[in-house]
């Protein structure tokens, strides 16, 4: 095991081996990961965790046959043996007609602010107190008990490709979610995430979770029907950002997207512009290079309601007669951060705008599932606070409702965006998303029968 965590000798050995096995192209990435987690429930810590790992990720191309391996067992024997088998696998496979190359360097890479937290090493000793601050704040707001999770993580990546990409990258991240309860059906959630610890507001997240829980007290069963809905950033990051996430050629080709043949079409209102933006300071998905070593950037997906394009790697871009957007994914292009241009309205103003129509304010949701991806028909369950809005104000909490609609409908029916731009990532939202509260008209709401 000597030299186990010295990446350069391992990478050198891997490249020699790949060349000797006559791979035409290759990508090698070595990632060191040090992650920690605190989980809590019923106002008490349930477990503390730490993971350290080193992982070698290799993509190889031989006579247009594409193979990959991820090796977490970094002994020389296992690496050599796995690469031998990778070579045999490449010979055994037929040609991948969809593979059209990897990006050719050399490259210069963008500098992204606020990706490394200078206070990361100090955070370990503060994590417990920060979480307790959030729990205690939720209690002050009237919550009885809180559950949640805090991650803090540091990764270091060394990257090179046979096409001249050679680079390194380090990043820290923090993800905090708190869900507070008055009882099992009365709850609220707060989320705070970013790359820099100073950007994580534990108190605000706890206050939000506690406040929503308290406001939800006494909620009765809601009635199904058509409603205007105001989605909090947490909900919008799941079901509104699902449409720009679906602007992916791989998803389109397997029937996993509702945006086939829609480039150039108006799919949303004119006040809606959305980017995939890998350069956002403090963005959990920000990164200077993609999985081919291609420099990342800011790419418009939807401009004034019109679907302008998809994210791409080299192969999908060539197939579509366009350029890589710096979103490789070796098989499927991958989003970095989804960014919605915010509006100018406060939450109160969004409620006021919906005056005269039955309106729900939905603060959190869970379990989005599809009847059909290709036409975007789905359901999702609001959880935590749901509020009936009357005369532009919260009238009462309601429960036990489901959004059952289509992704294209709700996107088309976006009326107005708030100015409370928030970065969201949590258990239900896996792509970091910067998004405000959003008012949507005529959304179909259903409920279960007894």
């Amino acid at each position, binding site marked *: 095991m000597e030299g186990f*965590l010295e990446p350069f000798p391992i990478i050198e050995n891997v490249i020699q081996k790949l060349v000797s096995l006559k791979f035409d192209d290759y990508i090698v990435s070595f990632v060191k990961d040090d992650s920690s*987690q*605190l989980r809590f*429930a*019923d106002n*008490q*810590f*349930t*477990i*503390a*965790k*730490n993971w*350290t*790992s080193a992982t070698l990720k290799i993509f190889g191309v031989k006579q247009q*046959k*594409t193979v*990959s391996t*991820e*090796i*977490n*067992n*970094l002994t020389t024997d296992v690496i050599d043996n796995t690469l031998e*088998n*990778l070579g045999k*696998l490449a010979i*055994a*496979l*037929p040609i*991948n007609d969809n593979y059209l190359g990897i990006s050719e360097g050399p490259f210069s890479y963008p500098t992204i602010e606020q990706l490394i937290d200078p206070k990361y090493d100090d955070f370990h000793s503060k994590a*417990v107190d920060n979480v307790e601050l959030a729990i205690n704040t939720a209690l002050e707001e009237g919550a009885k*008990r809180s*559950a*949640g*999770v805090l991650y803090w993580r540091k990764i270091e990546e060394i990257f090179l490709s046979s096409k001249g990409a050679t680079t390194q990258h380090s990043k820290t991240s923090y993800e905090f979610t708190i*869900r507070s309860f008055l009882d*099992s*059906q009365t709850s609220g959630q707060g989320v705070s995430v970013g790359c820099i610890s100073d950007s994580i507001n534990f108190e605000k997240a706890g206050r939000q979770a506690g406040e929503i829980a308290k406001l939800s007290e006494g909620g009765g069963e809601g009635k*199904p029907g058509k409603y205007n809905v105001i989605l909090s950033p947490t909900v919008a990051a799941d079901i509104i950002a699902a449409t720009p996430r679906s602007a992916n050629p791989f998803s389109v*080709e*397997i*029937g*996993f997207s509702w945006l086939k043949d829609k480039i150039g079409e108006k799919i949303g209102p004119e006040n809606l512009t959305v980017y995939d933006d890998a350069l956002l300071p403090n963005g959990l998905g920000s990164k200077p290079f993609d999985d081919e070593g291609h420099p990342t950037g800011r790419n418009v997906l939807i401009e004034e309601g019109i679907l302008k394009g998809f994210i791409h790697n080299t192969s999908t871009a060539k197939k579509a007669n366009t350029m890589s957007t710096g979103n490789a994914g070796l*098989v499927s292009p991958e989003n970095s951060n989804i960014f919605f241009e915010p509006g100018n309205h406060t939450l109160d103003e969004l409620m006021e705008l919906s005056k005269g129509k039955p309106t729900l304010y939905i603060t959190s949701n*869970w379990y989005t599932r*599809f*009847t*059909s*991806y*290709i*036409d975007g028909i789905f*359901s999702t*369950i609001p*959880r935590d606070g749901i509020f009936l809005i009357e005369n532009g104000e919260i009238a009462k909490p309601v429960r*036990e409702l*489901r959004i059952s609609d289509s992704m294209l409908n709700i996107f088309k029916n976006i009326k107005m965006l708030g100015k409370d731009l928030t970065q969201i990532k949590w*258990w239900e939202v896996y792509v970091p998303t910067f998004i405000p509260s959003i008012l949507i008209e005529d959304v179909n709401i*259903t409920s*279960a*029968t*007894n």
Partner: protein
Amino acid sequence: MESFPYELVEKTIEYGQDLGLPYIEARLVDLSINSTILKNGVPELGSLDRSLGIGVRVLREGGMGFSSFNNLTLDSMKKAVDFAAKMAGEIGWRRKTKISFSDENVNVAKYSSKGDQNKRPLDVEPEEKLDLLLNFDKIITEVKTASIPFRFFMSLDETEKKFILTSEGTKIESEIDRVHLYGLITAVNSTTGNMEQVFLQKGKSGGYESYDYWKMEDYIENQVKILSKIVTEAKPAPKGKIDYVLGPSMIGIVCHENQGHPSEADRILGREGAQAGESYLKHEMLGQRLGSEAVTIIDDPTLEGSFGFYLYDDEGVKSKPRFLLKNGLFKDMFHNRESAAFMNTSSTSAARAIGYNREPIARMANTYLEPGDYSKEELIEDIKLGALVINFTEWNIDDRRYHSKYVGLEAYLIENGEVKNLVRRPVIEVTTPKLWGSVDAVAKESYLEFDGVMCGKGEPTQGAPVYCGGTYMRMRDVEVR
């Protein structure tokens, strides 16, 4: 397992004991995964993934710590144990209710579930694995009754070797092969524009003999033909107060979602409150009636060849069947040793950790509705208006597992005791008590089938292989809006 670093696992336990920890366990996992992706007939990627690492869990001062590492040196091990011990102590003294484990037998055992000779994952050549997928794809393209514009397959196989050692003396060694297949097929009626999709999911412990067991070629051909018929022939689904007969796939998903998840004791205790959620069930509801006499739901990890097979759980507790509902009464929960201690009971052998870098939490294994005595025809013969729903597209349920919605895929109108035309997207949107309370008859064992699927839970997510299944069951008087 010649190169398995048993000694480091033993030293991990010794080191924890030297630190005076009241409990320490170490889990060494060696995992080999091979996968192939086929998109619209084109092989997009062949992959080989290899991992080896150790996960350590400790108790100290009523707190719990976990750490994992894959740099298998003494130094890394000590750092991992030191972290877990320090953090367990730091959070433990703050807890009002201390974490402890239920008393269980100390087990020493070795078992395996391997594929047939020459059919184990690493024995089968990549060409053979790919040929399977190419053949499935060809079957789809030969169906001409509707346009099939999108076809996607991913096959995976794995061999997982595991060695668990605890400071109490438990020592479990296992080796399990598994194969999985995922597919997504889309059919389009080019005249009407109707589109439907079917997810194909198969999973089993064992090797490539599983594909013969599944009769995959027939299965895929049948699925595509039905999908094509749905987009061309299906009529609107009936509404009003109707009866439903659910098939094995539908029963499997409702058993899993509406009764399996809410029976997880960690959810009932609130430990998953911010992620997978809590439960409509409470500890004090044990023994209460939650369904009709016809409903007995079992979860059995010991089913040989099943996707969720294990003989000892990840805390070394010997596995056994759990009766989630017994003739409609709430009987068993899924417990690991932590939740069992909180409820002053014994583990129900539900602790599963998916990977060396995950903690063992309460999970399902193989959940199914116990067969009854009826034939399928007997279930249908006195239904005036209803639907026979074989499988599903959408499944949606709240985090307390009380309000559920399922949308059928292959479904037929039942009228005056006869199965008639296909119907499109019938919706079953009912509460869990209504679901189990409306069941009045279940078909016999000869119809029993399982789906092998991955179940999601935990943070970070742990995708656990499970079986879900059943025969046929009849639901009376379901209101469809």
